[in-house]
């Protein structure tokens, strides 16, 4: 939709756990809609935001919609750059294997399956922020 001169680098920063508040879900809704605008999109998971990507989420007992599978579909929306801060994981007793595997098919390499999640340390996350045009915080 947007022409080349209007392509901006969007960074979504997610810092809240899912379900206790709605921010994780409503952030995801913006990411999905935003994907149609053909911008350069990255999604960052910092602080409690890393819990959004936990595998095995089961919301049956709290009566809320489990939207965690939607993160796995992001690749189909061309959202393929998810950045998880290593320090945030470690502080919470989590390791990368606790998170869902999220991949996309690379159409330039015969649809090879590639990981969407990149684990970055704090200094890399800091650099990411300073390289984006628009920052949306949830």
């Amino acid at each position, binding site marked *: 939709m947007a022409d080349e001169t209007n392509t901006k680098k969007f960074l979504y920063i997610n810092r809240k*756990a899912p379900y*206790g508040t709605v921010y994780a879900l409503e952030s995801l809704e913006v990411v999905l809609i935003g994907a149609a605008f053909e911008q350069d999109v990255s999604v960052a998971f910092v602080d409690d935001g890393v*819990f959004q990507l936990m595998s095995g989420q089961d919301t049956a*007992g*709290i009566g809320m919609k489990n939207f965690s599978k939607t993160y796995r579909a992001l690749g189909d929306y061309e959202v393929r750059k998810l950045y998880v801060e290593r320090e945030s994981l470690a502080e*919470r007793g989590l390791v990368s294997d*606790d998170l869902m595997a999220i991949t996309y098919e690379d159409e330039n390499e015969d649809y090879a399956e590639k990981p969407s999640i990149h684990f970055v340390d704090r200094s890399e996350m800091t650099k990411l922020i300073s390289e984006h045009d628009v920052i949306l915080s949830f």
Partner: protein
Amino acid sequence: MSTLHTVNKSPFERPSLKTCLDHVVQGDAILLIEDAVVGARKGGAFAEALSHKQASCSIYVLAPDLAARGIKAEDIAEGIALVDYGGFVDLAAGKARVCAWL
């Protein structure tokens, strides 16, 4: 008579768990609900404080909230017991008052 303390926020996000731990007496119970359950994860920054506190207080976590956040029962810090909403009701009924650390 003793108190049931409820904490509903992640201890990484709010001071409410820390403040709660600073204000319990021998025999009180602490129940972690909603986002607070993430603090019960083994190896997390608050697991040790929760384990220490068990010398004087019983500590519970609401199982449905734990499951929603993808944390397995076997991954929580030792000695923390799981309850469902019925167990939450029993805890509230069994103590003299409920103090919510909102």
